[in-house]
């Protein structure tokens, strides 16, 4: 009797494989294969029309020693990431803390704050940004009204990247909603206990709130870094990489090399550099996470 039961269970469990089969096919065909193929292409000369031709490390050598655009592009991307990821996190955390009170109209406020995030990476808001931040656009009109000097938001190489970062930070809604949910999960008993012990607001924040929401900060940091390092749309639409390549993100360079110059091999090399940076940052974050990310269940899930 027992034996039969065990056998039937096994058979049913194997059905799981049937259900995950489509994903497995997708994984092998559309994720693993392209992943390995792009690694191979990165050592090849390849223009889609002819089959890839092995050239060894040539692409990498060109990229790191000859191609000055790449160095510039790499730095621009790093700066973009260093502005947008912390900027978005801090902004969303601050707003979430402000909203984490029993206030009237909280739902409406949350809704309003989320609206810009609906258009994440869309061309429509990129066009809007481009128009608003033009030299004689509305933003400079506001500055003029306040008797402040006008700024060349998009024409000045030192400013253009920051203008694009602002668009990204403007869309902090998703992280904000995550933080709000996380803040609600912090047990009230912790605050009560702290209050009895005479802890002030700042202590409560740094000793209770912040440690409790570190998993969300961690998750957001990784996901946003991955996205930021391959960002494309807003910079491509607003400035198209200019002025003097001040906003020439790696994503734009990758697109231009691959789909305008049809240097697929060289572009694959760029994509693998992006991947290497993502891996390095992610590993670094994971390595450091045991020091600052707090898990209720000890990190096992």
């Amino acid at each position, binding site marked *: 009797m027992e034996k039969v039961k065990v056998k039937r269970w096994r058979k049913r469990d194997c059905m799981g494989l049937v259900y*995950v089969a489509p994903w497995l096919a997708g994984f092998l065909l559309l994720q693993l294969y392209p992943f390995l193929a792009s690694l191979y292409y990165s050592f090849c000369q390849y223009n889609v029309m002819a089959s890839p031709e092995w050239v060894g490390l040539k692409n990498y050598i060109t990229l790191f020693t000859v191609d000055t655009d790449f160095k510039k592009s790499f730095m621009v991307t790093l700066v973009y990431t260093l502005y947008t990821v912390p900027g978005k996190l801090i902004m969303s955390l601050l*707003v979430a803390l402000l909203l984490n009170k029993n206030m009237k109209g909280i739902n409406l406020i949350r809704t309003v704050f989320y609206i810009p995030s609906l258009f994440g990476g869309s061309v429509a808001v990129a066009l809007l940004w481009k128009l608003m931040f033009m030299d004689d656009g*509305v933003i400079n009109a506001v500055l003029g009204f306040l008797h402040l000097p006008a700024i060349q938001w998009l024409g000045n190489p030192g400013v253009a990247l920051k203008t694009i970062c602002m668009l990204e930070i*403007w869309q902090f809604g998703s992280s904000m909603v995550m933080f709000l*949910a996380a803040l609600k999960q912090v047990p009230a008993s912790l605050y009560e206990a702290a209050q009895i012990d005479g802890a002030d607001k700042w202590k409560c924040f740094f000793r209770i709130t912040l440690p409790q929401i570190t998993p969300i900060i961690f998750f957001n940091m990784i996901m946003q870094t991955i996205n930021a390092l391959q960002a494309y749309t807003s910079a491509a639409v607003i400035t198209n990489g200019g002025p003097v390549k001040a906003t020439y993100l790696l*994503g734009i360079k990758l697109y231009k090399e691959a789909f305008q110059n049809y240097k697929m091999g060289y572009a694959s090399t760029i994509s693998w550099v992006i991947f290497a940076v993502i891996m390095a940052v992610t590993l670094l974050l994971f390595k450091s996470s045991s020091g600052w990310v707090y898990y209720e269940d000890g990190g096992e899930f």
Partner: protein
Amino acid sequence: MKKKTKKRINLIITYVIITFIGVLMLYPILWMFFAAFKTNEEIFGSLKLLPESFSLDSFIEGWRSTGRTTYTDYFINTFKMTVPTTLLTVMTCSLVAYGFARFRFPGKKLLFMLLIATLMLPNAVIIIPRYSLYNSLGWLDTYLPFYIPALLGTYPFFIFMLIQFMRGLPRDLDESAYMDGCGTFRVYWNILLPLQKPALFSAGLFQFLWTYNDYMNPLIFISSVKKYVISLALRLSLDAESVVVWSRVMAMAFVAVLPLIILFFAAQKYFVEGIATTGMKG
């Protein structure tokens, strides 16, 4: 008494800050709407939010686009691209999540690890081989590069989200259905699927949103103007004329974001829940 006034002042400051940020959030969108009614002279160098006059000309002119293809076409194309993609994503991801959440099949641990690893696989790395693959299959300039990845569930984010949701559904439900002689698919279809609805809805909404907003993938895979989606058409509007009539561009930009705003207000609950649950468990 003193504490009470202090509390009140605090609350007022909070409201002032929140209102200020709220204005920063909404003003650009409002400005975009009103800019659709302005002439170029009104748009540049002026502070005024409201236009001199309201006329729908720029909407009508903008909608006409290149003349041969209009925004009617672009909208139809966009829905042709996004709706099947969204439905296929939800369908496959839900089935795959069922497989992961409810069965202990051989190799599950490894496969689950791979699934999680692909969460971090950047699109930049796989896009070039995918392009040449689609090219050799003759899928370029069709919407298949959007449908097939959805059909094959290559959106680990949604699978993960649905797994987490399904874990929260009691297993006793399955057990009792098995007792009654249901097969695994019946259990999924009749019992788990109805319970999963809110999560499916959230996943669907986000997939719709992301596909609708996507610019890079259509740019790479779609080449003929008559198959253009809205994001490509909007970009086209900048190049089309030597002097850009900004009111038309803003009118169409507003028309492009309007469906998202309506959708958001109609389904707010699912947005908020979707974000909150995925973030929490990550």
